């Protein structure tokens, strides 16, 4: 649908490159989750995709065709973006929902129908006549998403759409998106630091770090089929059985946060239900030298653990060193 190529983007002709990648594409009917730390460039990337800014270097493709800068404005109405901390205009929630529809000259009766749909999907009925100062942050965010959904654009971009919502409200929001997708095809990109949201609702996950797209999605992810039953389940990955505490059944994604893994040279007497022997296959330094990512091969599976540089020195870890990775069954997250 919309694609960015050979992008090197700077702000205000500054020297610092805030985005630097070869390609980023949003498929016609797919949801891409964009994960990354604060300041990694997620919001800037969304602004480029929203055609609100043109990349300092590089170009934009729309349906495979290169878009000249002068035509970007015309395409802008086919994209919409909900910012991380959205604002509402002066007026009621209803007037806010009508704003983009009026811009598009949609008739009053058609607009009423569209607004009725999004209001129902996002449970905004009681808020319709409220003004912005009468809304909580979570409610304001929901209204902003509804305002964007009402436009039925070809591309929908959401920057941390559920950051102020509780889990139930976030679930309602993503279900509304799923319902919209079931009705019509559109491309969506959701920047989120909630990995759970990314895994559950996106078709594809892209990681952004210091303006560069990482080909590797976050670590220690496994797609598995969970057997029926409750409590602690054994799941075979490679030649290793993982203990997972969950009530979920069927196809899921398991994530083991690298910071929840204990690294030792010998098995530790602990409550950890997963104690896996393996060998170190590599290291990478992170957090400006304060942390080390230890990659180990454990029964045919590659696992990554994050430890302090000091701990890595104490354990005298090196390539090929025998190592034990331990983590609790409850540390394994299920999406």
């Amino acid at each position, binding site marked *: 649908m919309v694609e960015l190529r050979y992008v090197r983007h700077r702000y205000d002709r500054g020297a610092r490159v805030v985005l630097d990648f070869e390609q980023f594409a949003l498929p016609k009917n797919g949801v891409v989750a964009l994960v990354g730390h604060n300041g990694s460039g997620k919001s800037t990337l969304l602004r480029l995709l*929203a055609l*609100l800014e043109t990349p300092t270097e590089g170009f934009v493709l729309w349906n495979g065709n290169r878009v000249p800068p002068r035509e970007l404005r015309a395409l*802008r*109405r086919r*994209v*919409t*973006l*909900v*910012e991380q*901390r*959205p*604002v509402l*205009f*002066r007026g009621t929630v209803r007037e806010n929902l009508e*704003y*983009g529809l009026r*811009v*598009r000259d949609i008739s009053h009766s058609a607009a009423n129908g569209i607004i009725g749909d999004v209001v129902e999907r996002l449970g905004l009925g009681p808020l319709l006549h409220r*003004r*912005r*100062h009468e809304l909580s942050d979570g409610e304001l965010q929901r209204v902003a998403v509804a*305002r*964007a959904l009402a*436009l039925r654009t070809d591309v929908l971009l959401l920057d941390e759409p559920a950051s102020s919502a509780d889990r139930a409200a976030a679930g309602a929001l993503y279900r509304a998106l799923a319902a919209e997708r079931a009705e019509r095809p559109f491309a969506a990109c959701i920047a989120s630091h909630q990995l759970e949201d990314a895994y559950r609702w996106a078709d594809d996950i892209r990681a952004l770090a210091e303006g560069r797209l990482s080909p590797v999605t976050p670590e220690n992810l496994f797609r598995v089929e969970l057997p029926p039953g409750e409590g602690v389940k054994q799941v075979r990955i490679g030649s290793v059985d993982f203990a997972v505490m969950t009530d979920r059944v069927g196809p899921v994604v398991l994530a083991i946060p690298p910071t929840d893994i204990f690294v030792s040279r010998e098995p530790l007497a602990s409550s950890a239900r997963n104690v896996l022997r393996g060998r170190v296959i590599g290291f990478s330094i992170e957090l400006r030298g304060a942390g080390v990512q230890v990659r180990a091969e454990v029964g045919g599976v590659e696992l990554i653990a994050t430890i302090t540089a000091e701990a890595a020195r104490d354990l005298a870890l090196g390539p090929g060193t025998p190592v034990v990775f331990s983590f609790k069954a409850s540390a394994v997250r299920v999406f």
Partner: protein
Amino acid sequence: MEFLAEGLRRAWALLLGGDAEVYGIALLTLKVAVVATIVSCVLGLPLGYFLATRRFWGRRAALTVVNTALAFPTVVVGLLLYGMLSRRGPLGGIGWLYTWQAIVVGDVLLALPIAAALSAAAIQGVDPRIRRTAETLGAGRWLTAWTVTREARFALAAVITAAFGQVVAEIGTAMIVGGNIRGSTRTLTTAVALYTSQGDFGMALALGLILVVLALLVNIALQVLQGRGGG
């Protein structure tokens, strides 16, 4: 002290008595002030928006010029305008010297920097996300500008009040390019100066009171407008 009380009594009598000259002067002042305020705001508010929202070469210099013009002495503006409108001046052909239109032009030159500088500050005070949000919802340039302007409407109402306050109380240019001609270009401020110099303190005070009441009424009207509609 007695002359003050006498002056107030005479002012009261003139106001209640419906003195034709007093009301003629007041009406002319109101006409000049309203026209000059409208013209200066119609030109100054968009200029302020432009200065606040666009990044262009020389923007800082333009802002400096506008801010400097805020403190431009009114008599100097009057003098320059006199030079332009006098028979030998470049605009002498239009024959506006010593007409109410000349006073309007002088007032616009004084109020325009106020409208532009204060509205630029008002627009800069609007949350930048408002403009970005309007753009993300598909608004074009004009609707985006209107949306941002609506958010700043309280501050912009204060800008209009300030512009009106400037033109209604202005005397320097009105005296020089208007000429203070009885029944033609005599405004409240020039008349107050004249009657004071002639020793007619009651008349001067009556006109001064009208000037204050006019300013008060316009401010009340703007406050009522501001009060309508919440956030």
